[in-house]
């Protein structure tokens, strides 16, 4: 799967599972950041990240390694889309 396709799926997850307003999802770009407290982020906290991880595992059929530090991959839609694309390519 290409990062662009992954990004579209992530936007869908944001609306269906994290309950973002669909109008909000339209404005998102690859550069939009995720964690709460970072400039121009969509404000996700620890609980949102667990929910997002579950949804990613379910949608993309990949398993997140809990012992690894995944935080760098969850910085922006760009880093996350690339991470997921690389994992699905390897599968």
């Amino acid at each position, binding site marked *: 799967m290409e990062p662009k396709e992954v990004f579209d799926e992530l936007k869908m997850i944001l609306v269906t*599972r*994290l*309950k*973002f*307003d669909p109008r*909000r999802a339209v404005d998102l770009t690859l550069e939009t950041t995720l964690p709460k407290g970072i400039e121009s982020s969509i*404000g996700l906290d620890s*609980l*949102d990240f*667990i*929910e997002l991880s*579950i949804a990613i*595992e*379910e949608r993309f059929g990949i398993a997140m390694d809990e012992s690894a530090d995944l935080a760098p991959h969850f910085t922006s839609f760009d880093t996350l889309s690339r991470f997921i694309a690389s994992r699905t390519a390897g599968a």
Partner: protein
Amino acid sequence: MSGRRVAITGAGVVDGGHASGVLSRLLDETEARRLSHVCQMTVAAGRMALADAGLAGGTELALLIGTEFGDMVSTIRFVDDYLQRGIPGLSALRFPHTVMNTMAATAAIAVSAKDLSLTLNVPTVAGELAIARGAAAVRAGRIAACLAGGADEPPRLVLDTFREAGAGADVRGEGAGFVVLEPLDAARARGARILGEIVAEAWRALAVRPHGVGRATRSRAIAAALAGAGAEPAEIGLVYTSANGDGPREAWERALLDEALAPYRPPQRSLSLPAGRHSGLAARSVATAATEAGDGLALVHAVARGGNQVAIVVAGSRDRAA
């Protein structure tokens, strides 16, 4: 009652047809996205009551929420997600809502209430009990101020089950409501508008089987509240009751009031929406009772199947002799 005098300095209730407008005005993006409906109503009602009182949050603000159903609506959704989609359907965001203190947890964050926060679960009298507990804590000097009231969103499945199990025919609506309580001297010192006072409060259990209505009409809660207020039955000019469509329970409540206030029979009112009563309405009862008590006293009373009973004596804002 000994201890500090307890002032009512604000009230806020969210329910009925106005709820959606209030919610969109009072909640931020994350709250609108993440919080369940009952938590949203609770947060909005808390903000309204604090704004009404002109009070800010902080380490001196406590929170007491009475609830009959908690966030059972989210709990059922959490389970349905699993039953329909298996383990991957389970939502991390929904799980915290399955614990009944979720309204207190989310409201405490929203208004920065950092002193104790207690969720009290009981049928029918939940809001009155939380207000009575809050008033007692202010009176004893244990807390400096509190939001006290209740919140509920009754799930249809549970109401149907209660009816089938013979647990009463109360008509229940949804909503949330709080009063702000603080020591009268502190409220005066900060120049707050005083809506009235809670002069005394008491809560007891009558001897009844679970879900049952009792025959005994001697009411220790009302007697203790009147004694605490140093008031005679003749001084009670108005009673707000918990009448709500459950005939046997209402008859019992009338009998309890008639015996406790005999030979007087002050007018009785019950605040209930067309859609039913909810735990947040206790805040409206207390605030309205304070407005309407005039020079006298009003009694806010509630009794539940199973025997829990709460009595709150309320006075208007006119200074009473200490």
